[in-house]
């Protein structure tokens, strides 16, 4: 890292050496993966048993990887914080999974899926990875069907497809509104089969709290993890030849999101603190059709399928005074169908980011509807009255019945009679730990898969592509690349007494002790909620320099207060849910700052990242390919400014120095860069 300059840019970060090579093999793009698989060294089956791999996460990515590596005969240890691997948050995905099967003979192909994904990601993803993703996508469907995943079928007994997220072909496979659940159960069953076979050891209710990295510089290797048994509180050491993180997304930094309560960044962040670069942290996807917040007590947001926008019309009252009125009493001329007004040709079907941003705009103007939360109303109407008139209630019920029921259950309102209310919510994080073509992070031996890595979606993810990526990584990519590492990496003995292990363990123990010892006044949730508000306000759908700077200050203040004033009750040696949350929020408090720095440094709008300073005259996102066609990979630096007396604070997490930016230039050899437009 000698090339790192120590000069602070914008007072916030320094710039380090660019990343020269993401290690994709040479050759034409459609041969790269075949080449890589061929070149990857093999491990003799008899030796595999002696090689161990730790996999953190049992979602689509982690579950699939653990099952596959188990089948191959490696010794796998699989971890999740839930009580069963089947509960990983992949289970919540509704819509579907893409694959370039071209079963509809509608012109789909690997090439087209590749193209759509790169374009959908607003030209901020790596071509080589995306091509491979499209290439293995078809195998995923085969694999899942063989496992018994009950995809929707037609009367002829063959698989059905739908089209999704604005692409022009039907390539989305689905299982009613539960595609994620069905795919995950498939991976879970394959995993359990390996548990029974003795190749996979399963650790549920275990949370990874630290990464063990042995060695220095070029020779360092990820060699294990420190976990807390969430039931007994015991801190355990697990060593292995390689570590895989498949720990999901970090949308919960916003407190309210469509993610599960437990979704967190801890695994990734701890690895980041140990030297793994974090790629594009500011890229978040905000989904326009979620059920709005109903009050201050709200703990999470629920997604409703975007398909509702096909027949529902979105509007708000023209006048603020009408917010309280029964929407049915507001006459046509007093309604503002703002999407239809601003985007006459796409209307209610504009892409996710645009629909979300406009909803926020009208609510910020004070024209939102529903209960007042904070200081304004956060909701817009999604009205099916026209559709019901046109198609009849039965037809609407047949098409959207389950979504309407879900809405009715949550809000207690009947959407057949009263227009639904929707509001955007944080949904997916495109950023994550930086990985090369092999899904290996900047720490040798540490691989990252699924939503936890930054890889394939660029600045925006297309619908039904996350499930595809998770399973591609888990079933097909990682098992092939990790074997090369396992076969070639030098092995040195590591025991529980080795300094790297002892040190990692000490960090965890101190952190735990400290969290319990503060005994301040505020609950963990109150910090999390406040952080979420800051992030939503300043690093949400629309960002600008002033807001981001303010957010960074606020987050720093909040983080300092957290370590002074949080109250975590209970003991370390039992199930302690407040303690679990506290550790996660502590990491979010650091990640939040990095996200803001990343968002601030990227002075362009692209995909989910909209900078108000960078827009076209019509208010559309404006990319600056000449300056920003790169991946921002951030390196962690500890805080050197913290009072040296207070070593503990620094080591447990309060200290965070100016991060180092490493740029990986994105080279487009196969796809031409274009600005998108939806007018």
């Amino acid at each position: 890292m000698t090339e790192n300059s120590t000069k602070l840019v914008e007072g916030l970060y320094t710039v380090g050496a660019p990343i020269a090579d993401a290690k994709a093999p040479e050759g034409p793009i459609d041969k790269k993966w075949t080449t890589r698989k061929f070149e990857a060294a093999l491990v003799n089956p008899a030796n595999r048993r002696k090689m161990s791999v730790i996999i953190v996460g049992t979602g689509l990515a982690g579950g699939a990887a653990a099952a596959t590596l188990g089948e191959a005969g490696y010794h796998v240890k699989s971890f999740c914080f839930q009580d069963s691997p089947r509960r990983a948050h992949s289970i919540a995905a509704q819509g579907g999974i893409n694959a370039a099967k071209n079963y509809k003979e509608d012109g789909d192909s690997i090439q087209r899926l590749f193209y759509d994904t790169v374009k959908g990601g607003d030209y901020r993803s790596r071509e080589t990875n995306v091509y491979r993703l499209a290439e293995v996508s078809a195998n995923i469907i085969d694999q899942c069907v063989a496992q018994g995943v009950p995809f929707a079928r037609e009367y002829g007994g063959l698989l059905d497809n739908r089209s999704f997220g604005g692409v022009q072909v039907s390539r989305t496979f689905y299982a009613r509104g539960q595609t994620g659940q069905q795919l995950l159960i498939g991976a879970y069953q394959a995993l359990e089969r390996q548990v029974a076979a003795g190749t996979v050891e399963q650790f549920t209710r275990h949370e990874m709290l630290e990464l063990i990295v042995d060695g220095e510089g070029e020779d360092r290797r990820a060699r294990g993890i420190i976990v807390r048994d969430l039931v007994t509180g015991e801190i355990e050491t697990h060593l292995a030849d390689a570590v895989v993180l498949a720990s999901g997304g970090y949308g919960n930094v916003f407190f309210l999101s469509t993610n599960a309560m437990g979704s967190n960044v801890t695994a990734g962040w701890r690895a980041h603190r140990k030297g793994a670069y974090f790629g594009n942290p500011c890229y978040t996807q905000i989904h326009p059709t979620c059920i709005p917040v109903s009050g201050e007590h709200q703990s999470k947001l629920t997604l409703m399928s975007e398909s509702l926008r096909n027949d529902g019309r979105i509007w708000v009252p023209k006048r603020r005074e009408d917010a309280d009125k029964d929407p049915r009493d507001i006459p046509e001329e007093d309604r503002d169908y703002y999407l239809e007004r601003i985007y006459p040709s796409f209307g209610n079907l504009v892409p996710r980011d645009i629909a979300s941003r406009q909803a926020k705009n009208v609510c910020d103007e004070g024209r939102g509807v529903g209960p007042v939360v904070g200081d304004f109303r956060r909701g817009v109407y999604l009205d099916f009255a026209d559709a019901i008139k046109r198609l009849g209630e039965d037809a609407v019920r047949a098409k959207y019945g389950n979504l309407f029921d879900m809405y009715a259950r949550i809000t207690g309102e009947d959407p057949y009679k009263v227009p639904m209310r929707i509001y955007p919510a944080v949904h997916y994080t495109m950023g994550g730990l930086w990985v090369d073509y092999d899904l290996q992070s900047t720490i040798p031996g540490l691989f990252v898969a699924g939503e936890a890595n930054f890889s394939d979606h660029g600045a925006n993810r297309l619908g039904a592509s996350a499930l595809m990526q998770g399973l591609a990584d888990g079933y097909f990519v990682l098992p092939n690349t990790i074997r090369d590492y396992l076969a070639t990496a030098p092995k040195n003995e590591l025991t529980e007494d080795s300094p790297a292990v002892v040190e990692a363990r000490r960090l965890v123990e101190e952190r735990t002790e400290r969290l319990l010892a503060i005994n301040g006044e505020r609950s963990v949730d109150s910090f999390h909620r406040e952080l979420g508000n800051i992030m939503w306000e300043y690093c949400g759908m629309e960002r600008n320099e002033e807001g981001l700077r303010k957010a960074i200050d606020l987050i720093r203040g909040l983080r300092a207060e957290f370590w002074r004033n949080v109250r975590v009750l209970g003991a370390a040696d039992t199930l302690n849910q407040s303690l679990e949350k506290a550790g996660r929020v502590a990491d979010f408090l650091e990640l939040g700052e990095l996200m803001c720095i990343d968002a601030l440094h990227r002075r362009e709008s692209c995909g989910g990242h909209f900078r108000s300073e960078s827009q076209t005259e019509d208010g559309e996102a404006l990319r600056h390919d000449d300056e920003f066609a790169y991946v921002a990979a951030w390196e962690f630096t500890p805080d050197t400014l913290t009072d040296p007396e207070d070593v503990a604070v620094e080591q447990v997490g309060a200290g965070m120095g100016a991060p180092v930016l490493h740029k990986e230039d994105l080279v487009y050899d196969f796809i031409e860069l274009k600005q998108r437009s939806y007018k």
Partner: protein
Amino acid sequence: MSDLMNLTLKIWRQAGPADKGGFVTYEVSDISPDMSFLEMLDVLNEQLNAKGEEPIAFDSDCREGICGMCGLMISGHAHGPERTTTCQLHMRSFKDGQTITVEPWRANAFPVIKDLVVNRSAFDRIIQAGGYISANTGAAPDAHATPVPKDNADRAFMAAECIGCGACVAACPNASAMLFTASKVVHLGELPQGQPERDARVVAMVNQHDHEGFGGCTNIGECSTACPKGIPQDVISQLNFDLRTAMRHSR
């Protein structure tokens, strides 16, 4: 908006697996009918935390009715009075001034870990016993190689909706997990891919079920009534049928 409620909560507190445990009564006020049951408990926990009392432990993750992590016995009903998961139960299902009893799932195969949290890993072991189709990664034929009649596919899907929450066990007077076990047997048994292992699967899974200490099913049907996914009892019939077939094949 709507009227706020005051409630009396009688909640099971148990410090750990070895503790005897008992009910503690709490009062909560100003509960909005729009809150979910778990958000109501969140509010109570914030209050306890402020008072310096340890918050009540309960499980939840997705909070949208799909992960199966949540699950409480609410005044005698698994997941409460409506057919849904605890996380999707809203306070509007209760009346102002009501007393609500909250207990953990009770079954010896689901030992209490703390307060309202139980250990359901027995379910994982039932799946390990045979709740899968053996298809190694990479060995799969094209997805269209075997068409599946739509009726079978739909029935497989219906059974595959099980989220492994354990409400069936909690509600069954025998603490039997037969609905859970049967939903997996039917999911895989309806599909052509599931046929080769069909006999072995049902025998192994039911044996594991019994070995975990769940009660036997005597066809009482409380399980289906409590199941948030409405898995019908007829899946148990199909499990019985499969077991009888396996017996005929002298398994």
